[in-house]
């Protein structure tokens, strides 16, 4: 009897799988398939499924936002999410700001339709990111995706968006490889690490050397061992010889380490003129305490926004955190020229109890850009939104970031995204470069611990 039973079970399984395999594909979504030829030859064209949205203009425009709301990147993820949420609130409401779509409720070209955000937590896992992207697109029927801060998730999630023909606006993931995939539906508003290492760091160092004659020759690289850290390090290593620097110490360390005294000792021993550091918040604070304990500082200290731009860093180290240079997409002091910045910041403070910083300012801007495109498209049809995104040309004056937005049709990158550099002076980030535009004067070299 056992034998017969087993046979029955096995036969059932085989039949079931045959049935499953022959199941017709999902009916609703597939209407037209458009084969797209790519810039990148290695990859075969990804078939794009275009889905027309039937019926009159909707009263609600659904947008999916993917961010890490738990796990490793939760602190930043939640902060970015708040940025996006505030943007939507401003768009939906009637605010007297000099910001696109702030005045008047909702999206005027869509009958004042309101934007509804659908948030998803990807917990920094590319697999979950992919799953949530599927869910947002096929179950929540979002017309566009925004996010996800993590470059690894950006890759898998935007591939899903590319397959469905849904615009994916990325305001905050910096891996330059994302722009090299030849995707049609991927748009990035912020600067990739390739851009900012060269156009911001290296150029600024060049200017400093020319203007202040500090004779900066040696470079120290300190990066956490993550995707962001590694990419930045690769960029720095590649560009250093071009700009005439010798890399005397190159450290990648495992993040969230309990102790970094040995790493700092190593840096101190090499004593580079310039230190470029990329660390997440807790490590940034730890390192800074070590610099104090071991009594060492470089002549020029560049920090990549990741951890140092988080307000928690300055809160923790106080005046010790002065004289750090970082690329910024957010500069509160530019409010003198753009009063709208202060207004938006006040609103953010009253809503979320904290001020804007590097990261959420970018996310906020991404949302504004996306909404502006949907508005100009005058429809929620993905192809229309995509066309509108390609036509985006928002001058810097109208945004809270120090750059405007205009996309390169071949890569989806924002060609205007060149960050400015700010320095922490008196506990505040103050724009100091490019020298011609900056309201404040850069302070270099970094004063030693005794001098402070």
């Amino acid at each position: 009897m056992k034998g017969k039973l087993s046979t029955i079970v096995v036969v059932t399984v085989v039949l079931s799988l045959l049935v499953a395999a022959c199941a017709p594909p999902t009916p609703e979504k597939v209407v037209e398939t458009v084969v797209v030829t790519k810039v990148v030859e290695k990859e075969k064209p990804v078939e794009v499924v275009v889905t027309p949205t039937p019926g009159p203009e909707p009263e609600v425009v659904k947008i999916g936002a993917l961010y890490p709301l738990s796990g490793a990147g939760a602190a930043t993820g939640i902060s970015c999410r708040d940025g996006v949420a505030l943007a939507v609130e401003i768009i939906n409401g009637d605010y007297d700001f000099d910001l696109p779509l702030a005045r008047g409720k909702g999206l005027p070209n869509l009958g004042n339709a309101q934007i509804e955000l659908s948030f998803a937590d990807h917990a920094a896992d590319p697999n979950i990111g992919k799953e949530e992207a599927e869910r947002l697109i096929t179950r929540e029927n979002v017309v566009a995706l925004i996010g996800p801060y993590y470059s690894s998730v950006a890759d898998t999630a935007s591939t899903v968006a590319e397959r469905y023909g849904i615009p994916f606006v990325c305001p905050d993931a910096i891996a330059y490889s994302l722009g090299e995939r030849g995707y049609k539906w991927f748009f990035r508003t912020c600067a990739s690490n390739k851009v900012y290492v060269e156009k911001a760091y290296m150029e600024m160092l060049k200017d400093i050397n020319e203007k202040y004659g500090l004779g900066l020759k040696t470079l120290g690289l300190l990066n956490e061992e993550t995707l962001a850290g590694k990419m930045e390090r690769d960029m720095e290593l590649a560009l250093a010889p071009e700009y005439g620097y010798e890399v005397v110490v190159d450290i990648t360390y495992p993040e969230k380490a309990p102790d970094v005294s040995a790493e700092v000792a190593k840096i101190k021993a090499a004593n580079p003129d310039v230190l470029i550091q990329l660390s997440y918040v807790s490590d940034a604070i730890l390192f800074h305490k070590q610099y104090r304990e071991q009594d060492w500082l470089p002549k020029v200290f560049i920090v990549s926004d990741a951890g140092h731009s988080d307000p928690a860093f300055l809160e923790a180290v106080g005046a010790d955190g002065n004289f750090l240079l970082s690329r910024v997409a957010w500069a509160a002091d530019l409010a003198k020229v753009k009063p709208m910045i202060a207004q938006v910041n006040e609103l953010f403070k009253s809503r979320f109890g904290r001020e804007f910083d590097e990261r959420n300012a970018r996310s906020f801007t991404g949302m504004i850009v996306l909404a502006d495109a949907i508005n100009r498209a005058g429809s929620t049809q993905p192809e229309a939104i995509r066309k509108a995104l390609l036509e985006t040309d928002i001058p810097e004056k109208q945004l809270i970031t120090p750059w405007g937005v205009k996309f390169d049709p071949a890569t989806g990158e924002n060609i205007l995204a060149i960050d400015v550099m700010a320095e922490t002076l008196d506990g505040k980030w103050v724009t100091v470069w490019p020298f011609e535009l900056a309201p404040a004067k850069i302070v270099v070299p970094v004063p030693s611990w005794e001098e402070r």
Partner: protein
Amino acid sequence: MPPDTALILGVILSGLLMGGVYALVSGGLSLIWGVLKVVNMAHGSFLMLSMYLVYWIWRLTGLDPLLTIPITVALFFLLGICVQKGIIRHILEASLVNQIFVTFGMWMLMNNLALMLWKADFRTVSNPLVSGGLGIMGVRISFPKLVSFGFSILATCAIWLFLQRTKIGIAIRAVAQDRKAAWLMGIDVDRIYEVSFGLGLATVGLAGSLLANFFSVYPYAGDIFHIFALTIVTLGGFGSISGSFIAGLIIGLAEAVSAFINPALKYFVVFGIFLIILLLKPEGLREAL
């Protein structure tokens, strides 16, 4: 002293001091493991809780972390008794796998509850009493680490003396050796379990007060200490307080020296050393209590 030697000495010293801190966190775990025979996967989360407690006390009253020590030690001792009575009691006889199952669930619960309640932001105590470094003959020593190390040694010695000299301490060791025999001898085993778990968490409370001086507090702050604690306790031989202290020093030193040579691979080296020692001496460095 030539600068390079001073630097290297500084690194070694720092590693040893840090090792003392690790040892403090591990001591409690070792005690729990040795007496209750329970592998507590939530140990790191309790450390995180203690750090949050210290932070909030500081935020609301301005009390320096060091001064919170009596509070955290007492509170966590009581907490330990409650947790033992409420949850741990049920899994004392369970298999290793089940204990991991339960305490892992607790780890997940505590970490994410902290995330929900206090958000993911990194909190730091600014301007604690102990901060900065001292220079002795050119060798830099971290003041917070030195103080923490001091407390760690004190606490370890205190626990050791407690276990060796006091009646309850001897009873604890008896239960650790042979639970049934101890019971037959009239020892109130349940009470011993409560005291032991309480003591285990009390050390974590102390560690929290010390670590808040130089660490940021966030929901996952305890995790890295936890993995180190597991390694140290296994290396030292579970149940042995002196063993975990020595193992703590070894791991701290290994971390510092390998970081100096190649920071990216420091965990590779630390875990490698751990594996090698374990394979050479499977019961750990020292015998149990």
